[in-house]
C-alpha cells in the first residue's frame, strides 16, 4: 500500500529561503527539478495506460509519457511540465502533495481507496480542466466550483473550473485594496496586486524616483555646503 508521505509543502518561503533555494537549484545542474517531477510520476508503478482518459488525452495533446505523467513543453526552450497525471488504481488512501503537477490540465485519481481529499491539495491548480475522482469524493471546492459534475462509470468527473472571481456566491470574494481577483484552483481565488501596485499587501505604488529626489537634494546640499564654507568657516580659527 503506497501513500503520499511527503510533508505537505506550502509555498511559503521567506525571501531569504527562496533565494537560497534558487541558488541550490542552479548549482545542482537542474537534477532536482527533474527528480521532483519524477516523484509524483512514480507514486505507483507502471505507465499511463493507452486506453484510459489520461492516455487518450496525452496522445491527443502530443505529450510524452513518463511513468504516470504526461509531459510536454510548449516550446523547445521551456522545461517540460506535467500536463496530465494518471494515478488511477494506485491504492492511494491519502492524497497530500501534488504540487509538482500544479500546471496539469487533467488528473485521474479514480479507482483508489481514498477517504477524503482536502481542498488545499488543488490550491493553485488553475489550469486543471478535468479531474476524475472516486465516486464518494466530492469535487474540490464543491459542485459550485465546477461547470459540470457527473458520475461516469463509477467515477466522479469534475469538468471545467469556474472562475471564482466572477461568481456571486456564498463567499465574499472582495480582494483588499489595490489588488485584483484571479482564479487560483478549484474553489480558490488569488488576490494579485493591481497594475502599478506591488509589495506586501500591495501597499506600494510605482517605483521611487531616486534620481529626481536625490539628484537635486545632493546638488543643493553641495552648493549650500560650499557657499557656507566660503562665507562662514573658511577663516574660522580653531578654539
Amino acid at each position, binding site marked *: 500500500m503506497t501513500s503520499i508521505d511527503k510533508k505537505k509543502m506550502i509555498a511559503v*518561503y521567506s525571501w531569504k529561503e527562496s533565494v537560497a533555494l534558487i541558488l541550490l537549484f542552479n548549482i545542482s545542474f537542474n537534477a532536482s527539478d527533474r527528480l521532483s517531477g519524477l516523484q509524483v510520476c512514480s507514486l505507483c508503478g507502471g505507465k499511463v495506460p493507452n486506453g484510459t482518459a489520461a492516455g487518450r488525452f496525452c496522445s491527443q495533446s502530443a505529450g510524452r509519457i513518463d511513468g504516470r505523467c504526461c509531459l510536454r513543453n510548449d516550446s523547445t526552450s521551456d522545461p517540460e511540465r506535467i500536463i496530465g497525471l494518471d494515478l488511477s488504481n494506485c491504492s492511494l488512501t491519502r492524497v497530500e502533495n501534488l504540487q509538482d503537477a500544479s500546471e496539469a490540465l487533467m488528473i485521474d485519481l479514480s479507482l483508489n481507496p481514498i477517504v477524503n481529499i482536502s481542498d488545499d491539495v488543488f490550491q493553485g491548480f488553475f489550469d486543471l480542466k478535468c479531474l476524475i475522482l472516486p465516486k464518494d469524493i466530492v469535487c474540490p471546492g464543491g459542485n459550485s466550483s465546477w461547470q459540470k459534475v457527473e458520475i461516469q462509470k463509477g467515477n466522479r468527473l469534475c469538468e471545467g473550473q469556474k472562475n471564482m472571481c466572477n461568481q456571486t456566491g456564498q463567499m465574499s470574494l472582495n480582494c483588499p485594496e489595490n489588488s485584483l481577483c484571479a482564479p487560483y484552483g478549484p474553489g480558490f481565488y488569488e488576490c494579485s496586486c493591481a497594475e502599478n501596485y506591488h509589495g506586501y499587501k500591495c501597499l506600494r505604488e510605482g517605483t521611487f524616483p531616486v534620481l529626481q529626489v536625490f539628484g537635486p537634494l545632493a546638488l543643493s546640499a553641495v552648493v549650500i555646503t560650499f557657499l557656507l564654507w566660503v*562665507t562662514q568657516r573658511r577663516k574660522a580659527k580653531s578654539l
Partner: protein
Amino acid sequence: MPPSCCGYLSQFTHHHLVVFLLTFFSYVLLHASRKTFSNVKVSISAQWTPSVQNDSAPPFSPGETWQDNRLFADEEEATLFLGALDSIFLFSYAVGLYLSGVIGDRVNLRYVLCFGLCGSAVVEFLFGTLTEWLHIYNIYLYCGLWVLNGLLQSAVWPCVVAVMGNWFGKAGRGFVFGLWSACASVGNILGAFLASSVLKYGYEYAFLVTSVVQFAGGVVVFFGLLTSPKEVGLRESETGLGPVETDSDSHRPLMSDEEEEEEEEEVEVHAKPCQSVQQPDESQRAISFFQAFCLPGVLPYSLAYACLKLVNYSFFFWLPFYLSNNYGWKEAEADRLSVWYDVGGIIGGTVQGLISDFMGKRAPVLAFSLAMAMGALVGYSRSPNDQVINAVILAATGFFIGGPSNMISSAISADLGRQDALRGSQEALATVTGIVDGTGSIGAAAGQYLVSLIESKLGWMSVFYFFIAMTGGSILFITPLLWRELQAMWRDRRALRRQL
C-alpha cells in the same frame, strides 16, 4: 532702558543669520524625522501583520503577499508595540540629554551636533529602510535601534541651544529664542509633508528621504556652522542684561582680512574689562555635571520643566485621540485642529520672550503665563462641542503652556548656562540645557504612561485635573526664583526713584 529697534537689529551680522538658520533647520530636520515615524505608523503596522479576513472566510492568497509577515498577530498589538517604542525613545532621549550636554561642553559643539544628526540619520535608515529591504522584522532589533536613536538625537538639542546662546546675547534672547523655538513645530509640518509625499512608494522611502535629508543637513552644518563668535574673531554674547551696543562691523557688507584684524583689535578692547576678573586658562574649562546641577536656578527650572513638558507632550501625543474620542470628530479633523495648539505655542513663546526681554526678568512672565494656563485648562476641559470655539481655547492653552515651555527649554536654559555665577568656567551651556531638557523628558515619558492610566481608570476630566495640578506644580517650583526676581525689581525701582 529698553533697546531701540535699530540698535536691536544692527548688533547682528550675517554670521548671526546663518547660525540662526543652521541651528533652526538642524532641529527642524530632527523633528521632521520624528514626525515621519508617527505618520507612517499605520503603514508599518500593516507591514508587520498578516491581513485579517472576517469570520470563517479563507485567508487571502497568495500567502507571500497577504499572510507571511507575522511579527504581530493583528494591528492592535503592533500599535501597542509602536507606543512602547515611543516610550523607549523618550526615556533614552532623556538619559542621552544628561550625557550629551556634558560631552558637548568638552568636545567641539559642531562635532557633537554633526555626530548626532548624521548618526541618528543612519540609525533611522537602518530602522526603517534597511530592515524593510532585507525583510528583517525583529522586535529586539527595533528596540535596540530606537534606544540608539534616542541617545543620538539627544545630542542635538543641547548643542543647538548652546550655539545659539553663544551668538545671541541675553538682551535679545527672549525674542530670538522664542522665534527660534518654533523649529519643533516647523519640523512637524515638514515631516508630515515629506512623509505624505513619498509614503505611496512604501514607508521605507519615507525613512530613506528624511534620513538622507537629515544626513545632508549634518554635512552642511559641519562645513558651515560657526559655534561661537570667537571663531571669526567676534565678541561673544554678553552675559548680563544691559543696553545693546551698536556694532560697527555689521554695516560693512563683506569681510576682508583687514577688517578681521580690526575686529580682533576691537574685541580685545571690548573684552578686557570683562576678562580682568577671570584667568584665561580657566575660561575654557567645562563645568562638571553636578556643578551644573547646583547652579542657581537649574534645579528649580528643571523640575518646573518636568511638570510642564509632561503637560505639553501629553497634549502633543494625546490631543487628536482625545478630540476624536470625546467629541466624535474625524481623525483628519482632529489632526488639523490640534495644529492650533502648536500655533499658540509659537506665538506664546515669541511674545512672552519679547516681554521678558523688555522687563529684563523671565520668572514673572513665566509665573503669570502658567497661572493663566491653569485657567485655560479649566476652560478647555469644559469646551463646548464646537470646532471654532475649541480651536480658540486650544490656541490660548497653547499660548500659555507651549509659550513657557519653549521659553524654559531655550531662552532660560541659555540664561542659566551663561549666568554671572559662571564667570570662571564658560562651557556650561550645553550641560545645563541637557539637564533642563533631560529632566523635562523624563517627566514627558512618565506622563505618557500616567495619562493613559488616568484616562482608563478615571476618565478625561481627571486627566485635565492632573494637567492643572502639574501646571500648579511648575509654578510652585519657580516660586523661589520669582520671589528673588521680584525683590530685585523692587530694589531697582527704589534705587531709581532715589536717584531721581
